[in-house]
């Protein structure tokens, strides 16, 4: 199993959810997040005092998938998240040792 994590622009969330559903993903976890990449943040001005806001709002999406689907799913997320502008975010996958469905106790791929 793999855990796909995407940190992306909040307004792309709906697109990504729809693309994941179309792909057949059953469930996902979404967390509000903040961060920056190479572009850093933005500047705000209050009565002439300038503040550099480097942490900008993001959402973090996590999906558990079977190994053979992982690469395709990363592509699906990247395609749905892309706007072509700076700050589109990152997507990565990591191996997962165990997953358990809390309600039934099913383990491994059955738990997805």
């Amino acid at each position, binding site marked *: 199993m793999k855990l796909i994590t995407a940190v992306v622009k909040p307004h792309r969330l709906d697109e990504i959810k729809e693309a994941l559903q179309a792909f057949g993903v059953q469930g996902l976890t979404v967390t509000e997040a903040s961060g920056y990449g190479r572009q850093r943040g933005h500047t705000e*001005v209050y*009565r002439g005092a300038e503040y550099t806001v480097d942490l900008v709002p993001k959402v973090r999406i996590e999906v558990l998938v079977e190994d053979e689907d992982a690469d395709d799913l990363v592509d699906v997320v990247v395609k749905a998240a892309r706007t072509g502008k700076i700050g589109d975010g990152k997507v990565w996958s990591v191996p997962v040792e165990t997953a358990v469905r809390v309600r039934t106790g099913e383990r491994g791929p059955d738990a997805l």
Partner: protein
Amino acid sequence: MNGANTAFVLISAALVMLMTPGLAFFYGGMVRVKSALNMLMMSFISLGVVSLLWVLFGYSLTFGDDVGGGLLGNLDHIGFKGIDPTSLWGDKPDAIPVLAFALFQLMFAVITPALISGAVADRVKFGAWTLFITLWSTVVYFPVAHWVWQADGWLFKQEVIDFAGGTAVHINAGAAGLAVALVLGKRIGFKKDPMRPHNLPLVMLGSGLLWFGWFGFNAGSALAANGTAANMAFNTQVATGVAMLGWLAYERIRHGAFTTLGAASGAVAGLVAITPSGAAVNAWGAIVIGLVAGVVCSWAVSLKYKLGYDDSLDVVGVHLVGGLIGTLLVGVLATDGVGGMTQLGKQALGAFTVLLYSFAVSWILAKLIHVTIGFRASEDDELGGLDQAFHAETAYDFSAVGGSPRSTVPAAGQAGASAPQKPHNKKVDA
């Protein structure tokens, strides 16, 4: 008694009353989340404290007959002695009940100390603040208002024009704000940590309420429903609108954006500047005063970063500088034949006397409180937020977890079973 004038002054008093909550929101939105309620309370408390002082001795010290030298009123009306609903203020046929006049003037006495609070946002003990405004009203506001507005007052006799409070309210509060900010020192993290306003819509709401209430403040100062009041109301609108444009233009050129805070601040700067001058100029004078106030005040707020004092919410840049602009420009722009160098000299005398008196006495009062009971909040309270420390509240509930009601609210029939936790500063920390 003149019924039309009485109705107008009573309505104006209510309009001016709304300015203090308006100011509370104007300031409250500009501070960080953790001290938003404290900022609102520093204005609100003035509604209580000064209303009481006004009845006890404030009205008498301000508008009682002079005790000599034009410096202070006597104690004839202490506790509102001798004033009842039939007592009249002013000459017939324009006279209004003393109670209407006293209520209107009370609202000025309420908002002036509240204005100071913006300079010391985020770092004072609430109890010490309440003591400060009690003392400040007594030894600074009441005497200065007597100098400027009472027929026996020494600045009134010098023919200083201050129609609605450029000296007594704005220069007075601005100079006091600077003095107290200097005594208290800078907020922890000043010029280092971001201290962005937590809620600009509140700031806009507050400035809108101020603008609205200011019609009562300015036009009501005519104490009659007449042409002077109409001229003042009209000029209030024009100067305020133009000041907003001036501030925004300056910001666009200097910083590349038309900011919301700039629009709100520019409007307030215009309101401040037109306050002393609006009755003595025409609409074109109002445009000039508004434009100068918008641009110069916008520049002036950056002084604190250059000079290194921490006037948290720019009371000096907006009220002191705006008050000086309006008070001095009236000497140049007055259209009823009084304008000119002589009048400019009189205006400068009034403006700088009030500035120096207020600065010196406010500094002494603040220092006195600072070295006796302590004026400044503890470092922990300042960092953790004054709302929790002094009011046992938080402005907004952001948390999705924790804060179970079972842990704090006594169940029915078990009153006091588990009382709300006391704010930590209630502990003896000697």
